């Protein structure tokens, strides 16, 4: 590499991806003991665990790049909502099972394309994580696909619930593939999400067509998650996630 990569831009990129994974892991964890079937309890917990593992690697790396001595725990537990860079999609409440499945479908299909592209990053940490995580995410995407087909192609009630779930999450999907301009220094290191749009949209819409549900056409779209603008939901989520660590700094067990 001729020029040193822009550490600040790379740190921000790793932080954004790590925050997506961390916040969705926390949301999915809320399903434990509440899912409609025991198998789904186990499945959603497993998916959350994979995402948490990805978040740990990404936040640790973001902290190293930042060079201010913050580790994964500092970044997860000691930032306030305006410092989080996740898309709003991952922070909205779980809703019913169909809302969660709709979100899983769009998010895992996005992550699948993202990690596939990141595997050829010039950055060995990002490429290493992507090569590992894409295998896990293939299972997440298949899980969401199977449920979307089952609900969409099921009874009138299950189809209506699946459609309502998609309608709920759709305004938040555009944020995932908004273009970024990270600067020339990180060319070939980070992936511009806009380049993922064709493959992502093709996958998701073909699943929806097969499931017999409509691609929603929302009248508004979310913005600003990557700049630290969040709905009130994130604050509540962080209160629960960070409470123990903030009440007992440095606690271990």
């Amino acid at each position, binding site marked *: 590499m001729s020029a040193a990569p822009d550490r600040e831009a790379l740190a921000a990129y790793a932080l954004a991806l790590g925050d997506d994974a961390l916040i969705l892991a926390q949301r999915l964890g809320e399903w434990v003991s509440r899912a409609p079937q025991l198998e789904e309890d186990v499945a959603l*917990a497993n998916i959350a665990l*994979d*995402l948490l593992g990805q978040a740990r690697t990404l936040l640790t790396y973001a902290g190293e790049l930042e060079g201010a001595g913050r580790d994964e725990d500092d970044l997860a537990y000691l930032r306030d909502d305006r410092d989080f860079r996740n898309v709003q999609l991952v922070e909205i409440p779980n809703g019913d099972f169909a809302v969660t499945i709709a979100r899983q479908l769009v998010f895992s299909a996005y992550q699948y394309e993202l990690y596939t592209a990141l595997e050829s990053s010039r950055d060995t940490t990002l490429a*290493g994580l992507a090569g*590992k995580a894409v295998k*896990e995410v293939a299972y997440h995407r*298949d899980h969401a696909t199977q449920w979307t087909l089952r609900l969409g192609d099921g009874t009138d009630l299950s189809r209506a619930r699946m459609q309502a779930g998609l309608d709920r999450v759709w305004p938040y999907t555009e944020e995932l593939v908004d273009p970024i301009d990270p600067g020339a220094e990180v060319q070939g290191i980070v992936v511009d999400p806009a380049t993922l749009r064709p493959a992502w949209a093709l996958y998701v819409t073909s699943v929806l067509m097969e499931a017999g549900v409509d691609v929603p056409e929302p009248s508004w779209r979310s913005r600003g998650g990557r700049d630290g603008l969040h709905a009130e939901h994130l604050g509540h989520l962080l209160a629960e996630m960070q409470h123990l660590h903030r009440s007992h700094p440095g606690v271990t067990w």
Partner: protein
Amino acid sequence: MSAAESRGNAEGRSSDESRAALLAAARAVPDPELPVLSLGDLGVIRDVRVTGDGTVEVDITPTYTGCPATAVIADDVRAALRRAGAGQIRVSTVLAPAWTTDWMSETGRRKLREYGIAPPGSAAHATEGPVKLAFSARCPHCGSADTREVSHFGSTPCKALWTCRSCAEPFDSFKAI
């Protein structure tokens, strides 16, 4: 050929032998979740090196990024190396190349089957090509291939839940990744 091997040549035979003994000690550690398997069977010990000052460096690759057993594995490896005579020990987690079930030894596959867990099929078949082929897992209890997957996800990140149509027993199957 790892860097450790080339360094070992310069330091003479005894250092090669000590590295081999340490590698064997690390590989013999049982997996905390599946004690029937050793870490060597699982293929997660990627390298053991002895540095100039005698520090033993171990590279471990996790099966899944979020697998909670990873921390326990690191602790168990440290303890085993200490018993094998190592002083300073540094354990690193390496993600690339990504762990694949294709690294699991034949012995490991046999032990899994005997333990009641269907061993993984070929990861290459499950993830490559235009049509993703997921082969049916063979029931570890009765050997029947007439089985079905109940859930992609099981009691640990590396396993899926299956059930056998022939003997009606549920069983875990190691996911091919």
